[in-house]
């Protein structure tokens, strides 16, 4: 008996248990045809209980996972997803489009804050009581009263010739003599994605840090509408270039659920290999970058060298250095031959050996240790409060991994250990990555060993209108959620990907607090949030 049953029995008063069976078409006005999220319960509540649910949920230690909305003619459907013990559920409510208002959950869950502001900017839904109703995703590219994700907003929009800079955003102010601001970005000095950081500081002392993201908002949710499944998979692979496998898998998983397609077991295993290889490649890059930020070039060069070797195997086995477009709806596009398997195995052996050498050299280096230990401390409490996922959460004692706790093929057929640290500093995030690399190497070896024979894809069945799917996978940054709903003719009606960065970014503002300004870059790098995945 999982927690949802208990929860329902205790709080049945205002949650309609019948609702999961009620077709979403009822709200959207299409042909009523039932297609529930097959792995996740959907609870429909009245809008007035929206905040009340959050209060109950937080008391029950539910983790706030994701929030998104969609338009259904005269109504907005607002969703929020929660998780506990690896069991997910989706909370859903419908609100009137003429007066779109909803009590805010951000008053209860800090993690819901930016998500609700995003929804507010994109749909014009007003969250009552929201602690911070400044705009988030909207800068100056569209007007205050335009809402890009509403149906009446054209994809092309009505952009000005030159979009003015977003200068007058109301940053949190620091008061007192001698306080000054450091604006950093959006064009950073390194080869990094764009985003703006605003420090309130006195000299090297950081009083407060505020993130201002949204610079790489590319309208992914809008341009996803009307796409075919293949096309959506391509787009999902480009939500965040470093997590192309993760996002693509999540989107395909959602679409396959919606269409009721079951992928062949071989395809699932290949996907597993892809995902773990992607994880290793990124962790190698990150570990190198962390070392580079503290000017320890030896490690950076060694890690980038290993990463390059790793990517070259990607190119030779899967045809793409970053593994883009290998995962397709219905399976994978490239098979691995016997030879390739041998190559992959050899690669793993090579990496394990090389990594051991490098880590020995690094482990003995006290100057590096001095930079990484105790810096950028994220307490387990804050990590839990923000629902932090992935290596950031796992370095602060958040023992959660989708692959283990809400398992999916092929992870359900193997055993592995989830890396965990509880120091919460940069060193922890560094070592968690190292542990994860080792765990992934083991996983890859198991996948290759267990790789079943068979097809690598199945035929696609066109899903019926309003069929929905929720893909939940573990990308290298952590849990990725992808929501897909189909329109007629195999077209996408709504696509919402939730990158792990969305829940991880806010903790950066917390973990830099007792650090000095020059330590910010390495703190940021240890978190390595995706700007693109956050801004959509």
């Amino acid at each position, binding site marked *: 008996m999982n927690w949802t049953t208990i929860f329902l029995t205790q709080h049945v008063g205002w949650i309609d248990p019948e609702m999961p069976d009620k077709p979403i078409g009822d709200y959207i006005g299409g042909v009523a045809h039932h297609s529930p999220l097959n792995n996740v319960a959907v609870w429909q509540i009245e809008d007035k209980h929206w905040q009340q649910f959050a209060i109950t949920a937080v008391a029950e230690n539910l983790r706030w996972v994701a929030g998104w909305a969609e338009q259904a003619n005269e109504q907005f459907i607002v969703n929020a997803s929660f998780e506990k013990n690896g069991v997910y559920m989706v909370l859903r409510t419908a609100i009137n489009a003429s007066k779109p208002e909803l009590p805010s959950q951000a008053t209860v869950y800090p993690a819901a804050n930016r998500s609700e502001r995003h929804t507010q900017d994109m749909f014009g839904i007003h969250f009552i009581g929201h602690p911070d109703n400044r705009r988030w995703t909207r800068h100056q590219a569209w007007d205050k009263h335009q809402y890009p994700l509403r149906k009446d907003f054209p994809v092309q929009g009505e952009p000005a010739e030159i979009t003015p800079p977003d200068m007058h955003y109301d940053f949190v102010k620091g008061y007192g003599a001698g306080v*000054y*601001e*450091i*604006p*950093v970005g959006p064009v*950073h*000095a*390194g*080869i990094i994605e764009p985003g703006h950081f605003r420090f309130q500081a006195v*000299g*090297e002392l950081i009083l407060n840090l505020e993130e201002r993201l949204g610079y790489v908002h590319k309208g992914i949710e809008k341009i996803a509408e009307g796409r075919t499944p293949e096309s959506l998979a391509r787009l999902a692979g480009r939500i965040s270039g470093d997590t192309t496998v993760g996002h693509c898998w999540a989107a395909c998983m959602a679409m396959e659920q919606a269409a009721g397609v079951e992928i062949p077991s071989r395809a699932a295993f290949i996907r597993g290999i892809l995902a773990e290889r992607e994880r290793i490649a990124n962790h190698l890059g990150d570990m190198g970058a962390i*070392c580079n*930020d*503290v*000017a*320890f*070039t*030896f490690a950076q*060069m*060694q890690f980038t*060298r290993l990463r390059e070797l790793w990517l070259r195997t990607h190119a030779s086995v899967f045809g793409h250095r970053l593994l883009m477009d290998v995962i397709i709806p219905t399976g994978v596009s490239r098979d691995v031959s016997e030879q390739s398997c041998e190559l992959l195995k050899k690669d793993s052996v090579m990496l394990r050996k090389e990594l051991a050498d490098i880590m020995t050299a690094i482990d003995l*280096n006290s*100057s*590096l240790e*001095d*930079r990484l230990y105790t*810096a950028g401390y994220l307490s387990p409490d804050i990590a839990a409060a923000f629902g932090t996922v992935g290596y950031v959460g796992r370095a602060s004692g958040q023992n959660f991994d989708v692959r283990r706790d809400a398992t999916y093929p092929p992870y359900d057929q193997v055993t592995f250990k989830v890396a965990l640290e509880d120091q919460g500093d940069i060193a922890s995030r560094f070592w968690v990555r190292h542990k994860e690399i080792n765990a992934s190497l083991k996983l890859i070896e198991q996948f290759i060993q267990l790789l079943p024979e068979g097809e690598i894809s199945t035929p696609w069945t066109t899903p019926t209108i309003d069929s929905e799917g929720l893909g939940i996978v573990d990308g290298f940054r952590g849990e990725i959620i992808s929501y897909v709903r189909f329109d007629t003719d195999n077209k996408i009606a709504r696509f919402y990907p939730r990158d792990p960065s969305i829940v991880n970014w806010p903790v950066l503002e917390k973990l830099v607090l007792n650090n*000095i*300004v*020059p*330590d*910010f*870059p390495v703190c940021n790098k240890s978190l390595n949030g995706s700007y693109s995945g956050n801004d959509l």
Partner: protein
Amino acid sequence: MNWLIAILQTTLFVALAPLLAGWLKRCKCYLQNRKAPSVLQPYRDLLKLTNKQPVVSEQASWLFIKAPYIIFSATILAASVVPLIAVDLPTSASADVIVMVGFFAFARFFLALAGLDVGTAFGGMGSSREMTISSLAEPAMLMAVFTITMTASTTNLSWAISHVLEQGLVLRPSFVFALFALILVAVAETGRIPVDNPTTHLELTMIHEAMILEYSGRHLALIEWASQLKLMLYGVLIANIFLPWGIAQSFTPQALGYGLLAIIGKLAVLAIILAIAETLVAKMRLFRVQEYLGFAYLLGLLGMLSHIILEASR
């Protein structure tokens, strides 16, 4: 004639500085398992920069535009004081080692002001950090220098070097301490790892680079050149004071030639040592710098005390 050689030596100093930077880069690249750019690359970079049209912020005042020239000339003057290939040149009499430190202070003063001139947070950050580090480095440096000058009972570098040459190879504990102190200070003052990272791309961690983020074209070239010159200056200072052998004591072409070869050899070896040391450590936290420079100061003090207790004639 002497003046001619002095001017020649200073010119040589200025001309060779980018070469040392190029060689250092090459050593570092080899230690990073990669091929290196040509040792002449710094010259190409400088040449290119002088050919570009400089961009100046609309907030900048005359100080911003003139500062590179001031910084460059002050560094050249410091270079003219230090014997490179020969001792007894008239330029080293016109100013002693304290004045040389004064020239560095002069250059730094204007660099820090230039950092503040455009009114960006980064410039201020760089200035503040630079002035902090230098105010800690300067006493440590003078402590090391005093040890040497007290042994040679002169602050004139040329005389000091002659003195060391006359004494021959004697192992003096005070010199060993002073040498290490000076090396530590040199690393801090020239903005090398572990104090500053000259190749960093992160504005928030920069010290020297943060002040020159706004410079472009020939202005940037001058500042870059001045910092290469400063690096070489410290190298020559260390090499020629502690290992002066080979330096020309007469102005015959042969002696000068040997002097040149000797200093090139010494600097090449120093650069290799620096590259190895830089590979070995990460940049330290900003507020570890006082411990580092405090250690340098302590070494200088130890050198001084060992001179007084162990070596002084009385």
